[in-house]
């Protein structure tokens, strides 16, 4: 019980700090902390393999990728000037609005998750063996597994296509060009 609360608190706190940071580097690092706490929770849930994967894949790979990009772009600080046009509706900043909605969502989820059904303690038969998981993965989930390979292929190709440096001189393209003055202000027509 205490472990749950420990990991839980760490995860929540770290996540909160992630979104409270201005500097993305700190955020990334804090997120790794959060993921660590989560993997602790996975252990508590008798899913050691997931816990390990969480550390390796998420913290080890994905977050590093993030860090890499942050470094690459060399733009750690968030810009703070406000864009006057970026308003949703009258006077309400999407920021505050979104946060409120997030609160509402949590409230709704809390309501949904506590009503109508009794959650007992976890039963015995947890599947925690890596062998069992592996077997299942390559039999029952073989097809899904293959699909993920395609997915990764697509992501790879995509990432290459998009992030590749220009290998030819830039020239403006009509198809994509929208000059600000080209746009007719609403109400003009």
């Amino acid at each position: 019980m205490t472990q749950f609360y420990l990991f839980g608190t760490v995860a929540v706190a770290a996540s909160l700090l992630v979104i409270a940071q201005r500097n993305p580097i700190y955020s990334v690092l804090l997120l790794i902390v959060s993921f660590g706490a989560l993997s602790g929770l996975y252990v508590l849930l008798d899913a050691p393999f997931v816990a390990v994967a969480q550390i390796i894949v998420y913290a080890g790979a994905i977050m590093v990728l993030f860090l890499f990009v942050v470094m690459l772009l060399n733009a750690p600080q968030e810009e703070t000037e406000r864009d006057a046009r970026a308003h949703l509706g009258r006077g309400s900043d999407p920021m505050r609005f979104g946060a409120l909605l997030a609160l509402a969502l949590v409230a709704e989820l809390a309501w949904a998750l506590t009503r109508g059904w009794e959650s007992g303690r976890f039963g015995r038969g947890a599947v925690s063996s890596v062998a069992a998981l592996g077997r299942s993965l390559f039999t029952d989930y073989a097809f899904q597994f293959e699909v993920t390979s395609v997915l990764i292929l697509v992501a790879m190709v995509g990432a290459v296509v998009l992030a590749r440096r220009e290998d030819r001189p830039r020239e403006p393209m009509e198809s994509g060009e929208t000059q600000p003055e080209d746009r007719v202000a609403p109400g003009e027509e």
Partner: protein
Amino acid sequence: MPTLSHYLMLSAVLFGIGTAGVFLRRNVIMILLSIEIMLNAVNLTFVAFGRALGSGDGQIIVFFVMTVAAAEAAVGLAIVIALYRHRESLNPDTFTMLKW
């Protein structure tokens, strides 16, 4: 012992934090990070449910989700890089050439 509900509540809170992050931060990379938080929250739900159901499916799904998350991150960051090349900015609110 914590029950399923505890885990679900925790994941709900994390999910909420993730969504809030999408709105609170004005840096596209941070927004991506927030989405990662959301995915992780979902993962927690999967694992918790899997544990409650006594099946390994929950855990296996998490692997797939991780893969998806990685792929998304890769493409997303590539887009961010491409975008940064054009705009020299990571503030999502400045990307408003397309609107109305």
